[in-house]
């Protein structure tokens, strides 16, 4: 869509509407282990995006003919709450969320050591409580932390971010107006440990050179996000350890 007259997505100093540089992320916070019932979970805020990811599994597969005799299947359900967007969304899956669910499940599958759990399912639920551009990347990033939090054996994490083009400039991590009135959107997810690209979509217009810049921005950012993911997990285990120390008398005390 064309931007309304007078809306400048990039100012004369090369700064974006919210003051960010082209290759700068919005503010991201994440916390692992926020749900009691799920085997693993993560709450993530990314700009105004608010996402809870929860993981159940490995567990039995229903219906049975969906089982894979040689490995676990990773199933993802990406879902926007009715109040997450400006105009209330009807509950239940629409075509967009079904496509995203499929892509997220496919992006997470390669990092899970699926051969260890034949005939089972690992279910990943991503609830978008509030949406503001980039929800699929936010969901994927949170889901990855939730998988680790659930103790699912993985060969690495998945980190995700979108790049794009606005006002003929390649930028990282589009916010809402940039997504609506920008030229190009490029969601990317990689396994930071290996560099493999596990999610890649694009719509709009890129020259080969622009594409190269956008990919470089995205990959660099994914490494940054990967750091936050590891930090969130570290904090959870730290908290757990502290709690444990406080509830159990230290060995030295017992010996006294």
């Amino acid at each position, binding site marked *: 869509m064309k931007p309304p007259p007078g809306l400048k997505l990039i100012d004369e100093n090369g700064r974006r509407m919210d003051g960010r540089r082209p290759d700068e992320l919005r503010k991201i916070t994440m916390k692992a282990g926020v*749900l009691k*019932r*799920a085997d693993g979970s993560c709450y993530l805020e990314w700009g105004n995006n608010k996402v809870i990811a929860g993981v159940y599994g490995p567990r039995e597969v229903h219906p049975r003919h969906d089982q894979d005799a040689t490995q676990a299947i990773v199933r993802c359900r990406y879902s926007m709450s009715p*109040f997450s967007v400006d105009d209330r969304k009807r509950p239940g899956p629409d075509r967009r969320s079904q496509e995203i669910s499929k892509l997220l499940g496919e992006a997470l599958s390669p990092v899970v050591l699926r051969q260890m759990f034949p005939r089972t399912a690992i279910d990943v639920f991503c*609830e978008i409580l509030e949406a503001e551009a980039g929800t699929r990347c936010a969901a994927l990033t949170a889901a990855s932390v939730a998988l680790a939090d659930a103790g699912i054996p993985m060969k690495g994490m998945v980190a995700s971010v979108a790049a794009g083009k606005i006002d003929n400039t390649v930028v990282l991590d589009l916010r809402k107006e940039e997504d609506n009135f920008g030229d190009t959107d490029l969601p990317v997810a990689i396994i930071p440990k290996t560099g493999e690209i596990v999610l890649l979509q694009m719509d709009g217009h890129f020259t080969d050179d622009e594409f190269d810049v956008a990919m470089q921005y995205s990959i660099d950012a994914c490494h940054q996000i990967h750091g936050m993911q590891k930090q969130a997990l570290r904090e959870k285990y730290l908290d757990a350890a502290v709690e444990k120390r406080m509830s159990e008398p230290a060995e030295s005390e017992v010996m006294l």
Partner: protein
Amino acid sequence: MSDDIVSDIKRDYIVNLAKQGQRYDGRAFDEYRPISIETGLISRAEGSARVRIGDTEVVVGVKMAPGEPYPDTPASGVMTTSAELVPIASPDFETGPPRPASIELARVVDRGIRETDTIDLEKLCIKPGEKVWMSFIDIHVVDYDGNLFDAASLGAMAALLSAKVPYARFELGADQPMPINHYPVSTTAIKLGPALVFDPGLMEDKVGRPRLTVAHDEHNAIRAMQKGLIGGFTLEEVKEIIATSKVKAREMREQLVKVTGREADARNTKPGH
């Protein structure tokens, strides 16, 4: 051993505890777990709340938009309540169309607001017969550790009390607070053997039956009831639950109006008829 037999064993354990005057998490029969209420979490919603009762967590959002009134109530706003028991909240919740349990939950919360005249729907009329405010209350259960009815009702009330009617966004004037007539609060008890147990935790929810939810308003009138699950109560048990409910609802209402800054309003309601 089949699930059904396992659940019989669990039931015996929980009921035996109750016979000895105990609960599995050490609470008294009429004791609630800690309750936390936060509002304003969702900036895109007109009103929102996150309510936790113990580890049970619900997020409720209120969305509003102008729309057409029903032909038989041309000067009244419209409200709709939905509940989703999303599978993130429990291994027992499944994807797919709403099942009877979530339909019952949504309908009980809905009646607890609608039939108690909680929202002043007449003040949500923009132009009679043409345009009124439509309010959608969406209940999202994200962690299920027992007693959904109270968490959902409390969440819905908190979201409503904190909601702004978005006149400005639709270029109809300045935003206004949601017009509220009453402050009903629901409490739920289940029967565990001889005991009547309030705020059932997950284990109790799974084996206890029947269940009775009672809503009282700020004048201590009974505004709604719903008996659910297999089994029956004696009349005396029903009356006992109502009496305790009155006390518990008062405590929860105090917390609710304080969090939402509606204390003054709540003191000045007229008794319902």
